[in-house]
């Protein structure tokens, strides 16, 4: 006798996930038979909006595409314009940008620590990691004037130079976070219950991982050493020493370990940055923003975000507005097709857990 199928609607709010989406689940008992993702709760239309805003006005828009980690968006747009224009970026600005991107990665991973644990019922972790993330937000506030949306990286460099004594503050936060990692391990990664929940759950088919277009920690958790910072270095990543950790389990556990190890790499990168950062200009001024025209052409740029390769395809027709800005966020694949696939046969209690492990970010799907 066939067991009766029940329909459940999960979301649109999810623990540890920024933005809203709904997952429609067909379950028999506790087991998922089919999952269907439903987006459309954000209704933003940013890509279209950019076509009627001038180039400078696009910068305050792109950062909103990803709430927990807006900076790769700013970096992508800035770099796309710089390539189209042939605009030089002062070296100091490149170092500052890497610092910002890595700080954003740390902040994003701290949010993930909370979300991943929270969705497993470990509610102490989000209290800690979201609190620790605030130290990074304090740094952002001091550097850019904004805690969440920085609007700091723009074409030609960055908006303001580092405030006085900023480097020391960054290093202090790095020391603090490094110490905290050991507590995180005790509570989360060395915790048998977490391990039991994570291992063997949400397993990605390694053979198909590349075909599906999986990137970032989910791909590195399948043993592929793929990272834009190494494969196609931008800014000054080629001048820095860091590892790209990989795991082979293809499951939630492997992805957690990849992120945990990358966290240390980012701390190391930031320390190198603070040591090597040269003086000089931080901004190569763009023309009057009211009549700034970017030469016609098209370019695809990519940045390694906390969730993987974040791509922008920017087309200019030579006018004062972008003709098209196509945003390809990693969550577009991870949060829709891959999620639907991994949920088949999964336990109902693991749905949020798997969502978190993929770095599902609805704002990236709806641009």
């Amino acid at each position, binding site marked *: 006798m066939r067991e009766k199928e029940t329909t459940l609607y999960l979301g649109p709010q999810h623990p540890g996930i920024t933005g809203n989406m709904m997952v429609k689940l067909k379950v028999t008992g506790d087991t998922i038979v089919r999952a269907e993702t439903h987006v459309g709760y954000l209704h933003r239309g940013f890509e279209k909006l950019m076509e009627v805003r001038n180039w400078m006005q696009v910068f*305050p828009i792109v950062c909103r595409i990803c709430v927990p980690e807006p900076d790769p968006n700013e970096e992508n747009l800035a770099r796309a314009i710089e390539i189209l224009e042939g605009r030089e970026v002062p070296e100091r600005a490149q170092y500052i940008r890497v610092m910002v991107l890595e700080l954003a990665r740390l902040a994003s991973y701290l949010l993930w620590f909370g979300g991943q644990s929270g969705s497993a019922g470990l509610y102490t972790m989000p209290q800690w990691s979201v609190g620790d993330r605030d130290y990074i937000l*304090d740094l952002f506030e001091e550097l850019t004037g904004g805690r969440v949306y920085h609007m700091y990286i723009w074409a030609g460099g960055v908006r303001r130079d580092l*405030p006085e004594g900023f480097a020391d503050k960054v290093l202090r936060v790095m020391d603090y976070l490094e110490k905290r990692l050991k*507590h995180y391990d005790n509570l989360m990664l060395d*915790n*048998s219950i977490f391990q039991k929940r994570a291992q063997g759950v949400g397993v990605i088919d390694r053979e198909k991982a590349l075909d599906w277009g999986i990137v970032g920690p989910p791909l590195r958790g399948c043993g592929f050493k793929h990272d834009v910072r190494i494969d196609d270095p931008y800014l000054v990543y080629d001048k820095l020493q860091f590892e790209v950790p990989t795991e082979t389990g293809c499951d939630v556990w492997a992805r957690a370990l990849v992120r945990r190890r990358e966290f240390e790499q980012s701390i190391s990168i930031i320390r190198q940055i603070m040591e090597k950062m040269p003086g000089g200009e931080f901004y190569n001024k763009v023309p009057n923003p009211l009549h700034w025209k970017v030469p016609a052409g098209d370019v695809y740029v990519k940045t390694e975000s906390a969730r993987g390769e974040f791509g922008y395809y920017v087309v200019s027709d030579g006018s004062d507005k972008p003709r098209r800005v196509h945003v390809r966020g990693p969550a577009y694949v991870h949060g829709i097709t891959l999620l639907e696939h991994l949920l088949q046969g999964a336990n109902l209690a693991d749905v949020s857990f798997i969502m978190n492990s993929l770095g599902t970010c609805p704002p990236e799907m709806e641009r």
Partner: protein
Amino acid sequence: MEFSLKGMLNPLLALQQAGKRPHTIQFPFEEKKVAERYRGLHFNDLEACIGCGTCSTICQNEAIDMVEINPGDSENAKPGDSGLRPRVDNGRCCWCALCVEVCPSGSLSLTTHYNYVSEDANSFLWTPGVSNPDGHKELSFVSDTSHSLLDYARVPMRELEGKERIKSFAEVVLGYADEEAKKEAARCIGCSICTEVCPVHMHIPEYISAIEHGNNEDAIRIIYDNNPIGETCGKVCTRRCEEVCPLGARGEAIAIRWLKRYATEKAENAEIIREIVNPDIKPPNGKKVGIIGAGPSGLTVAYYLALRGFDVTIYEAKAKAGGMIMYGIPKYRLPLDSLDKQVEYMQSVGVKIHFNTKVGEQISFTEIEKNHDAVFIGIGYEVPYTIGIDGENLENSIQAVNFLRDINADKHVDIGNRVAVIGGGNVAIDAARVSRRLGAEVTILYRRREEDMPADWEEIEGAKHEGVIIKTQAIPLNVVDDGSGRVKGIRYGNARMVTDEKGGRPRPELIEGDEHILELYTIIGAIGQEADYSFIPEDIKEKIGFKSGRIVTNEWQQTSVPHIFAGGDIVNRTADAISAVADGYKAVKGIEQFIFAK
């Protein structure tokens, strides 16, 4: 995997953190001290703000609109201020602070104020500076010219060197090259504050934009739309537009005059102007208008009436058209061929000019009245004031306007090697710079301080660069006779500035005993001019209203005698070419209305 004892006990170590003080929210609640460049609610310095609206233009959220704080603010605003102020809809604002980065005056900033709670939804429409009058105490994200998005530095104009200049009457300003002009034009923020103060309301942002995009022919068409002597204005305009350019608040104003000069010079002769402007000339309407004086106002009236199908005749006393711009402005500022080209173009569209026809001598005013449906008087201020000191009538004591007129008419004037010019206006500077070119040592004597001089600062700089000595706070007392009826020198007294009790500008007061004599060959008076109305019959003079020597007109330049219109120096006190053009432009409409209402 199996559960390990370590894996079960490890999480308990979290208890170590139980006493940790929270970082995020403090109990009891403490207001967060935000960072120095925090982007909170807006503040606007209402005095420094000029209401240019650039903040509103750049706002990608369309959160800013420009409003009157009090009804009537935009009407009562001082020149160079729209009277409007930004109002921010905090329901739309994203605090990106692009508005701050493009604020030319630097009046707009963001504050440390981040907490705002109200039940009244309308109160989220926030007028910075009005909603938070104390906001200046909590400024954080402020505009700074060193990292503003605007370009505050002007593209420098290339000029002849001082030593080269005084060798001839060659034009001093060399003009922008194409790339320089585009670069300068690109600085414009298109706010139109300049348009408001321009007497003619020329379409300044529009032609600057055309120049920026290399559409010089468009720029010429836009300029000729309401100014037929755009090229002249491009060289010698008093440019009130630049005085109010918002970029001038913290940097250098857009070189509006030089950009106009650049565009108009692209049309090399009258035929090319005609080809580019390609004016729509209406068929003759049978109405005749007589114009007295071919100065800027008369030419403007004539040009636009001719385009509208009127039969227009100008009566000009001298051999060339242009009035004061022809005979008053030295050729190193306005070369002859430039003016000829513009006049020739106007003649090509049907403007008739009778040269060497002085009204009152070659033709009577009554005859002009009889032959035309309307008359426009634009005779200018050509009769110089005398200084009013002893010895002024001695030989070689001359008047600047006469001197400049003679030089421009290629006559020889013997000024010797030592000259003093009395006065501080543009005419004085012109006379001084011309005398330098004739090889004389020149001193300007001016009663007040240099900053009080009515002359254009660039002209003053130019004069100094050419070696003119400017002696300020020097009051002429009398001209010294050499015993044979010729000028030997001038006796002047030094003055101190005393504050005016009535609140006017400080005035000079003679320091007793501090008197000096400057030995001279020639003394040139340049303290002002007046008009010669002797050609107007007495009965008409009685009907036309005069006030302090100027004719009173209505807003259409119409006098109390309905068919007589007037404009230029004889009507307005500003006494510059652009105001005369404005008068002419208004008179065109006035004359049209008058004639067709009959």
